[in-house]
């Protein structure tokens, strides 16, 4: 079948139908989104559902390509700015003794507690060692074995998390509607 030549009045397809008031739709859309900002929350896990380790952030839509690009650019510019700042401030003389005009005493050397050269925390001050030796070691708290899994609790299928789906059970003759 040869397509009919459209005349000038038929040159504009009627679909998609234009909106009567596109601006008002835009306004309503933004208003609805504001309402949703207050209303939306991420739900507690459904009974038996696993915690979600992937997907969009809670209560937010997934980032758009533009959003991702924007974040990458922010990081790149941030790194450049940090590099420039390091170059600029790295060439300046460090604060000398004259900075006392800002107040405060000059920095004092750290107190020497006779720490080993390896550093580490300051050892506890010598205490009543005899008492500590006399004290009985506290009995180790007995850890109960893991509670048995509640098999009655429904869980999501393993297949969803990778690997082939487990095949369904062999068919049982279905009830055929009369």
């Amino acid at each position, binding site marked *: *079948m040869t*397509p009919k030549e*459209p005349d000038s009045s*038929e040159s504009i*397809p*009627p*679909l*998609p*139908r234009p*909106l*009567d008031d*596109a*601006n*008002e*739709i835009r306004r*309503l*859309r933004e*208003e*609805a*989104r504001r*309402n*949703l900002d207050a*209303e*939306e*929350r*991420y*739900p*507690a896990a*459904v*009974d*038996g*559902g696993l915690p*979600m380790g*992937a*997907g969009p952030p809670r*209560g*937010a*839509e*997934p980032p*758009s390509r533009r*959003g991702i690009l924007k974040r990458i650019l922010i990081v790149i510019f941030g790194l450049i700015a940090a590099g420039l700042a390091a170059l600029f401030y790295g060439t300046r003389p460090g604060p000398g003794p004259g900075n006392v005009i800002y107040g405060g005493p000059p920095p004092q050397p750290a107190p020497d507690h006779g720490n080993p050269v390896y550093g580490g925390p300051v050892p506890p001050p010598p205490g009543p060692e005899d008492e500590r030796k006399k004290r009985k070691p506290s009995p180790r708290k007995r850890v109960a074995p893991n509670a048995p899994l509640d*098999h009655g609790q*429904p*869980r*999501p*299928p*393993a*297949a*969803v998390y990778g690997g*082939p*789906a*487990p095949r*369904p*059970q062999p*068919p*049982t003759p*279905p*009830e*055929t*509607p009369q």
Partner: protein
Amino acid sequence: MKPLRYVYAVWELTLQCNLGCVHCGSRAATARTEELNTEEALDLVRQMAECGVTEVTLIGGEAYLRPDWLTVARAIRDHGMNCTVTTGGYGISAATAAGMAEAGIQQVSISIDGTRETHDLLRGKPGSWDACFRSLANLRQAGIAISCNSQINRLSAPDLPLIYADILAAGCRAWQLALTVPMGRAADRPEILLQPSELLDLFPTLNELATWAYRDGLLFYPGNNIGYYGPYERHLRSMQGNGAIWEGCQAGMNTLGIEANGVIKGCPSLPTAAYTGGNIRETALREILSTAELSFNARQGTPAGAAHLWGFCGTCRYAQLCRGGCSWTAHVFFGQRGNNPYCHHRALVHQKQGLRERLTLETPASGEPFDHGKFAITLEPLDAPWSEFDPLHFTAERIQWSRSAASTSNLFPILN
């Protein structure tokens, strides 16, 4: 860059079907008496292309039961439109799949409504679940993108995590979900429909599944009657665009529905009687698009666009943008659009007030394709005891997160 707005036409190519789904909205079984012939169908393809349609989805009944269906599919592609298919998937052989690929069909969505047992029951044919997955494999082998769609009702809702695992393993790229509503044969089975308060247990589950899908790269697509504006709104729709939210029914705006006899509606699901703009045999598509039946969404964003709202939806903070959610869903419950009981935000508002809504069938459906009954809505205390005569009552405890969980098969005989 201006985003491209797709225009979809969903075309029931024939009402003939090889399944007998208990929830079929069009009561598909045999062909309509006066379905479009090949020449009329090809002319409709041309008119759709001229009117701006960018994608045509062929449905049924079962589209592939019509002998000339690949001719129509090829014509759709030749006119520069995308061609996709939604099917029950009962018996698409490797040869049929290869023919579909050759005709240019780009994507096929197969309806999977549960585990084998649930699906076969809902689809009315033993072995249909296995047939679906064989069809998916054949289509994938032929190089056609595959996806799935699922109906959510009291029988299928507990199976959702298992459906997810199965379709992911089958290589599906997308999963569209829709709530079963009382149209066609589903109107004869009110006991399998979710009650509004049961959405409170369903939506956290959907949210969890959306998170899995996001992680696994499966496009999670909540259908137009899943919503609206609850705590998971943007997360559930996150794959439809950054920060996407529900913006009201788009029937007739960028969507068309075509019945096999040439009837044109703004959306394929809308009831025939109230929303038919005309028949393509008598009127040009461009002209039908200007009728009131296809333009009722054109005033969105103006006060007139929300004038039809009533009941809870008329008082809602999201009323003007939402406009009562899915027109189809509201209409098949109450015989008019503008008050949608299938709304998560609404259920949450009632929950905060210690209330819940309950729907009861008052007037049965007539028995025609795309028919519906009429329901009454009752507001009652949230903690009121559930009727003992309602054994399919859905709660989060019934969700099968693993295959070892107890089967709900003992509940099925109620449908016999």
